[in-house]
Structure formats: structure tokens, C-alpha cells
């Protein structure tokens, strides 16, 4: 056996897959552990054989960036190994994500909790941007939460290095509700400001407990944004009418943020509005955000381990959400299936999962053979 193969086999032996916890179109996620220590990990197995162009781009992006980025608020890639035509990414195991926490109606968020999550998000993002990496898919279910409460940015499948000025990038990135107006208008030259817009949307969602700008189509997304923040003027955002896909979508008055975020402090609204400035060059940067007065005013951010925690964890999720012939729309630890739609029904998610798992176990008619 070649030395390289041998090294791979050794790596492979270090990790044990215990159970499948998620499946998407291009990856299967297992909960596993390190054989020698028992440390819990998530193993994301990417099926490579099915791609006619070999290793696929999202896998390559994810591996490329996570190999370089080591930060408390960025998910850690512990190892990579291959098995036949599969690529296995060993990631640190994380219990839940911010989306699950937002949707858990049993939890009450204090302003200090939100401040803590925001600080961790900005810290992780500042590190990515400092390393010239654009994430391009920030949303609550890509912000994972460790058992000690720490938040980690995950899923770098759409990430890329900053392009040189004048070098085109695709505008088909970022999940719609978190996508900034410059991308919706088809801008091919953009910057780290696109991620900041997404963080602004997440910030608002933490306060509202529902998505802030849930557009139903790309066109509707622009309308939704303008209905909330007012249609931009040429003065506010010079040149935006010249963007490739610009279309007038109607004149809307700015809806005062204060009326929607009734309980928010002035500092809070100031930082939020700076994340949602139309002109990307004026939008606050992650580094500036970290020194914003919001983070220095009382209340102090909650210590991570004291943050509200989800009652359900990935590991405790019933298997029927993730196996067999069921449409996959849950996320795995540390990773998630691609092109997932968020469920909007959120009333009693916490208990729903458990009820369903019991119902399924008693319902013999629903067995899928060989599952």
C-alpha cells in the first residue's frame, strides 16, 4: 500500500461513525467519536463519485477554508479522510443551531443574550473577513451552538476569497431572506458588506423571533426590504439604479425601526441600522461593529454557558426526520444539507419532534423496508 493510502487509513481509523443524523442531496451526516478519546464529533460524508467533474465545488470550498480558519467562533474541521469515492469531513460536534433556539418558544431571550450571540457572530465573521474570506451564506441555521453555549459559524460551501477589484463574482449566493439588495440587483462586484447585511437580518430575527425580511421570491424580497427600510434614494445609495438587474419596485416609506423593535435600546437600533445601510460601502464592517457602543453599554453580554439552550438537540432528534424516504429538512450537527427550505411553522417545534417519534414507533404500517 502507498504511503499516502496508509496515512489515510490511519486517519480513518481515528474516527468512528455511530449513527446517521442527517442526509442531504450531496452529503450524509453521522454522529461519531474519536476512537481513542471518545470525544464526540460530526462526520460529514460527501459522496463524490456521483459528480462527473470530480470533487465538487462546495466540498472543495468547505475544506479549503476550514483547513485555514481556526477560531473560537468558527466551526473546527478536525480531520479529512477519504473512503473509496467519498470524502469525509470530521467536524467538531455541536448540539444545536441558532435557528432551533430562535424557534424554541419555551425560551425567553434577554437583551444580554442577544448581545452575546451577536458578539460571537461578529467575532467569527471579523476573523473570516480578516482572512479575506466571504462566507456568503449566513443565516441562523448556519450559526451553530456548542454545548457550552459558544456560537460557531459553519457551512463554508459557498465561501470564497475576496476577489481582486474588478473581478466578477456570482450574485447567486446567500439564502434569499438574508440576501442584501445589491445582490438582488445583480451586482457582480461586492464585498464583505454582503455578510454584514445577513448578520443584520439575524440580529433583527433574534429580537423578533421570526424572520425579519421573509420575501417569497427574489422580486418580493426587494419589496419586503423596501417596505421595511424605505425605497432607497439616489442620495442614499448612489448608482444603484445602474446595477445589472435593477428594476423599480415601487416607492415605500421607511418604517421607523423603533415601531417594530419596541423594546430595543438606542444603541441596539443604531448598530442594526448600520448593518442595513443600503450603500454597501457605508455599511458597518465586522471590525467596526465589534467596537460599536452597543457592545460596551449595559447590560453586559451573557456568558456563553448561561445562554438560553434548546430543549431538543440534534442528537436527540427522532430518526424519522432524517432517514429513509423522508424529505430531509432538518440539519445535521456542524453541517447541513444543501438547498434546505426553512419551515415557517414554528409554534411548538420543541415538543412536536418527540410526539412524532413516539407515534412513528407505534405505527407499523409506515415502515419503510430495509430502512
Amino acid at each position, binding site marked *: 500500500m502507498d504511503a499516502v493510502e496508509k496515512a489515510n487509513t490511519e486517519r480513518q481509523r481515528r474516527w468512528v461513525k455511530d*449513527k446517521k443524523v442527517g442526509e442531504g442531496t450531496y452529503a*450524509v451526516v453521522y454522529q461519531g467519536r474519536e476512537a481513542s478519546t471518545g470525544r464526540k464529533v460530526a462526520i460529514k460524508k460527501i459522496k463524490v463519485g456521483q459528480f462527473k467533474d470530480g*470533487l465538487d*465545488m462546495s466540498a472543495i470550498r468547505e*475544506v479549503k477554508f476550514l*483547513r485555514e480558519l481556526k477560531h473560537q467562533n468558527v466551526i473546527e474541521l478536525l480531520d479529512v479522510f477519504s473512503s473509496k469515492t467519498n470524502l469525509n469531513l470530521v467536524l467538531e460536534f455541536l448540539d444545536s443551531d441558532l435557528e432551533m433556539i430562535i424557534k424554541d418558544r419555551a425560551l425567553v431571550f434577554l437583551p444580554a443574550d442577544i448581545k452575546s450571540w451577536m458578539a460571537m457572530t461578529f467575532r467569527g465573521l471579523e476573523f473570516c473577513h480578516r482572512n479575506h474570506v466571504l462566507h456568503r451564506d449566513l443565516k441562523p441555521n448556519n450559526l451553530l451552538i456548542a454545548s457550552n453555549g459558544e456560537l460557531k459559524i459553519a457551512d463554508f460551501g459557498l465561501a470564497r476569497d475576496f476577489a481582486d477589484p474588478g473581478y466578477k463574482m456570482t450574485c447567486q449566493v446567500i439564502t434569499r431572506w438574508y440576501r442584501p439588495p445589491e445582490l438582488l440587483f445583480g451586482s457582480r462586484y461586492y464585498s464583505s458588506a454582503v455578510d454584514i447585511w445577513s448578520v443584520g437580518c439575524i440580529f433583527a430575527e433574534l429580537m423578533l423571533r421570526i424572520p425579519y425580511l421573509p420575501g417569497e421570491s427574489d422580486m418580493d424580497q426587494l419589496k419586503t426590504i423596501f417596505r421595511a427600510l424605505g425605497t432607497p434614494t439616489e442620495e442614499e445609495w448612489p448608482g444603484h439604479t445602474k446595477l445589472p438587474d435593477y428594476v423599480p419596485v415601487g416607492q415605500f416609506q421607511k418604517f421607523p425601526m423603533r415601531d417594530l423593535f419596541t423594546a430595543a435600546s438606542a444603541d441596539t437600533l443604531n448598530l442594526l441600522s448600520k448593518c442595513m445601510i443600503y450603500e454597501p460601502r457605508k455599511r458597518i464592517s465586522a471590525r467596526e461593529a465589534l467596537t460599536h457602543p452597543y457592545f460596551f453599554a449595559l447590560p*453586559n453580554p451573557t456568558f456563553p454557558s448561561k445562554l438560553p439552550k434548546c430543549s431538543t438537540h440534534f442528537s436527540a432528534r427522532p430518526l424519522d426526520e432524517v432517514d429513509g424516504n423522508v424529505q430531509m429538512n432538518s440539519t445535521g450537527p456542524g453541517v447541513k444539507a444543501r438547498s434546505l427550505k426553512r419551515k415557517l411553522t414554528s409554534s411548538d417545534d420543541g415538543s412536536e419532534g418527540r410526539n412524532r417519534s413516539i407515534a412513528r414507533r407505534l405505527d407499523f404500517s409506515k415502515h419503510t423496508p430495509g*430502512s
Partner: protein
Amino acid sequence: MSPAVINEAPPSEKKLSLYEASTQCRNWRYSTERLAQIRATLNEAAVTIIRTKIETDEPGSSRNVSFLTPNEEVLLVKLYISKIGQLCGYFRFPEEVEATAITYMKRFYLQNTVMDWHPKNVMLTALFLATKTTNNPISLEQYTTHIPKTTPNDVLDLEFLIAQSLGFEFAVWHAHRALWGIWLDIQNLPDGAALASAEYDAALARVRASRLTDAELIYTPSQIALAAFSLVAPDSAARWITLKNLSESATLLAVLDEIKSMIAHQGLPPDVESVREVDRRLKLCKNPEKVVGSKAYLARKKEEERIAEEKRTKKAELQKAAVNDEQDPFGTNLAPKKGLVDYDDDDDDD
């Protein structure tokens, strides 16, 4: 209170620069001696294995085989590195693709030997992989139709091996980027704007020449860029060094001299005739297991088949057992199963 309290990072920990934190700096930098040692070890191990294989195939036949030396291996790799530029010109790939593919080639041959894997195939795959890792992907079909006598499978077969040999560390920091930075800096100097862009182009040519050497495995991208720049514009380079308060650094000056001499002496494509002789001998001393159709190759395939078959049988049995279990209407699995078997796994990789 500052947000610093949120994460309790040890304050004493030294903050690494971007480069120092990179996999390139941590895992892919060597001393000249270490490089030679790695290559010698790889070469020796390969020769031992191949000699044994040839002997099992036909006893006594290895006596007349003249195996490649480490330097000959490097020479052959260098020839194919010099061909990457031509291919990139043809496809109009950006400079980053070219530089990355070259780095992949060099790193690959610090884990493998040309007697196992011929650099021609490795080059084609390394280049294809580099288009993807630098975010300049093209379809495999488009790629192979423009390369004579190459099928998509020729490229795909090695992709995994190459990715593995690189340790899946795809990000590379390049000297030509550092050169661009120095060039921007220099234009900011009081009389820097007077510099002709011809000087930048000339320096870039030296950086490209450095890709044919081991420089990037020994020095940092900015050291290489600065050496290249000082080869063509020593005065400007000296001013830049002063600007950065480095003119007192004896280490830097020594390093620059080493790189300059490396570029001057090794920065040329190898003489094709001498490489041809190496390639001819390689045909005789290649690992027979990797030569399609040879006895050793067939034996290895057969063994692989046998193991795969064994695994399939085992898996089928497990699956059968699982189905039986499920069919019991009073199934005992109300409690979560322990030591769950991976039935849904679509392969048998464990």
C-alpha cells in the same frame, strides 16, 4: 465591560499573522536539507518495493534495472511543471491557477515518487484540481477534449490521490501576489510613481522562474517576491526594505541572496534531451503494480476484488438480519438500539 469577556481566549497567546497561521507555513515549509532527505527517503523506499516486485515477477530481472535517483525525479517533475504554463496559456487560466497547480505538483512529489505516478498524469489532474480550488472551474469534458490522448477518467482517477497527498490543504499563498503588494507599496514611495511598469513585468518574470525551483518550499512568498524585485530593480527594492525598517536585517539580506541565486541557477526549464533519457529509464523502473496489464497489476486488482467481495457479503448479511428484525411486529426496538449498524451507508468504508 468589553466584549472580550465573551470568549475566554488566553490573553497570553501570541496572535499569529495570516501567513503564520496558514497550512502552507505550518506544513509545507522545509529546510534545503530536509527537502533532500525527504526525497532521498521516498526514492529509496520506492526502489526497494519496486525491486521486490520485479523480482517476484521474474527473479533476477531487477539486476539490470537502473532506477531513478532523487535528482532525476526532480528533473522530470520540473519538466512537467514547465508545461503547466503552456496549458494555462492555452486555456487562458488566470495566473493563480497556474501557480497553484505548480505548488500542488511539488507538494505531491514530497509524498509520492514518479516511479509510482508519472508526472504527466499528475500534472493534468493537479491543474484541473487547481481550477476548482481557486474558484475558476471548467467542466471536465471541456478540459479533456482540448488535451490530446486524455480521457475524463485519466484526470479523475488521480484526483483523490492528489487531494489526499496535499492533506486536503488547498489554499496556497503565492509570491506573485506578494509581488503585487510590494509593487503597490513602491508606487507610494515619494518618487515611486516614476517606476516603469516594465520593472514590475520583469520582476514577475523572475517570480515565474522561481516556480521552477524549490524556493516556495523553503522561503515565504514575500521573500521570493522581494528577491525577484531586487533582481530587476535593486534600488527600489532597497528603498522598500528601508521603508519597512528591515535594512538592518542580515538574515533577510542573506535569504534574498540565496533566492536570487536559486532563481538564476535553477529557474530555467530543464534540457529536454536529458529529461528524455530519464523518462526512457523510467519506463523500465516504474512500479509494475501501476502498469496496467502487468502480472503485478493483475495480482493487486484481484486482491482488491476479493476484499471488496468479502465486504459486500458481510454487508448483505447484516442487511438481511436487519430486515428480519424490522419485520417482527412486536419489534424490540422501542428503546434506541445500541451500537447502531450503518445499514443506510451506501458504501462499506469501515
